[in-house]
């Protein structure tokens, strides 16, 4: 099992605040790694640090063996994205003045004009998120909350990428669409796309997760297999403050 992405002792400061206190994390290739933790634990900050949107003040982030983050690395966010990482931010990052079409066109780096978009892949995406087809020419800012979320995910998968960083994709999605999303991610995994997923939705976590990392207070406090955690009620209580079974 090789790690596609590796974080070692990553510290991140936002302004005067010290948010990440030495995060160690390895994301194995071709699997889904769940990043869990309570509100404010530092999950989003971790993803942003990987994308180079916050600078890691100490430690290192390595992607396929290359250093992409840390005090010595010089890679900028565009470099990191070009290395093959797609990112679905927590705030969705929709370009609200642009139409759905234009949002998608921007996400597809290879396409210059709409005609150059991969029609088959687009249809595959529309299959999961039909609303995007319906509102193709709509300004994205006018979509409903759930539709924006769909667009955010769709943008990240319009072209194949080696690693997906996804921050709470299920929030605001209707149950049927959450199902589609799970299926979509499962299909991506089958194509050997590596996924690092932050999620509060227990059902999704259990359905997709291979590996688990639990964060608290800017550190990874537990790593292991999903199955292991799901089986251990006492561990759940200690790490997450409740039991996963309770809601299942």
């Amino acid at each position, binding site marked *: 099992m090789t790690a596609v992405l590796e974080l070692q002792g990553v510290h991140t400061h936002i302004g005067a605040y010290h948010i990440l206190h030495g995060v160690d994390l390895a994301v194995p290739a071709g699997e889904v790694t769940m990043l869990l933790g309570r509100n404010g634990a530092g999950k989003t900050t971790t993803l942003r640090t990987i*994308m180079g949107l916050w600078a890691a003040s100490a430690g290192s982030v390595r992607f396929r063996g290359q250093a992409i983050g840390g005090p010595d690395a010089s890679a900028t966010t565009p470099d990191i994205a070009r290395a093959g990482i797609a990112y679905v931010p927590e705030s969705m990052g929709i370009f609200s003045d642009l139409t759905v079409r234009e949002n998608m*066109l*921007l996400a597809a780096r290879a396409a210059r004009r709409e005609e150059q978009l991969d029609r088959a892949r687009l249809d595959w995406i529309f*299959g*999961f998120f039909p609303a995007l087809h319906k509102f193709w020419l709509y300004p994205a800012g006018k979509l409903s909350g759930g539709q924006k979320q769909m667009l955010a995910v769709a943008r990240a998968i319009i072209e194949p990428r080696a690693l997906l960083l996804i921050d709470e994709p299920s929030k605001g999605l209707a149950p049927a669409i959450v199902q589609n999303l799970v299926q979509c991610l499962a299909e991506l995994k089958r194509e050997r796309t590596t996924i690092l997923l932050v999620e509060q939705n227990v059902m999704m976590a259990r359905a997709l997760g291979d590996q688990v990392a639990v964060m608290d207070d800017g550190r990874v406090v537990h790593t292991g297999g999903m199955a292991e955690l799901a089986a251990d009620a006492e561990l759940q209580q200690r790490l997450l403050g409740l039991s996963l079974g309770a809601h299942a």
Partner: protein
Amino acid sequence: MTSHPADGAAIPKAQFDARPLWLLAAVMAIGWPLVGSGSTWLTLTVAGLAMGLIVFIIASGLTLVFGLMDVLNFGHGVFIAVGAFVATSVMGGMADWTGSASLGANLVAVGAAMVVAMAVAGAIGLAFERVIVRPVYGQHLKQILITMGGMIIGEELIKVIWGPAQIPLPLPEALRGALLLGDAAVERYRLLAVVIGLAVFVLLAWVLGRTKLGLLIRAGVQDREMVEALGYRVRHLFLGVFVAGSALAGLGGVLWGLYQQSVVPQIGAQVNTLIFIVIIIGGLGSTLGSFVGALLVGLVANYLGFVAPKAALFSNIALMMAVLLWRPQGLYPVGGR
């Protein structure tokens, strides 16, 4: 999985909004009975349209920078001034070419002035972007201040280099005077301006409308981080746009200076209000909008100036107010503002 949507369903194209163009036509139509005489109307209309195109050229760089990058560049005028001053130096040095009665030789001189002016203004734009504008992307207020600071510095440096006094910039021989269409006179120089203005417009409309560039930059303004996270180097893009905008201002400066036939260091500041009005009318950032806006400004100024010269002082502002009452976000609104 839910059912597939109809494959290859025709994707509707956005409708082109032609009403502002109709407005333009309407203004011309109203002008006729107001002016009365046909040849006078023709003279005024052609002159107004040509003036509009000159204004469009000096405003186009600002539209570009503001429309795409959301940068309120109050220092735009300095690039106009630089363009004009460079033209005095270049054309001064080519006295043989400008003095010759041959149109070809004259055009070579003007063309050389334009090329050099654009290059110099663009180069200064490069420095301006790096030193002055870059730290304040996304902060309008600071943009206003820092670019005004840049403008003051620029103006003072111009005074250091070219002196504080007015410098004549005579039109080359063959571009002076007018062509007569019956009783209507059309200045030759304005015809040159029309050609260049149209070329600039077509080029801009094509680059922005037909390439991904326009999209990228607009997106970059809204959420720069996200565009970078999609793998684009926003920084280079912005730099490129700014340089292009500055170069256009330099071009505008040459044309404006030649139109005025003399250049003062304040030449840029003098047109600041005018070009801001034009881009507001246009919709703060739409190329087509500021194109139509500039033509409107040119026409209305001439008709009003003929019919009621007293009112002409406020014609631009009145026009702007009227347009905004009709469309509060300008003729062609650019989303998000």
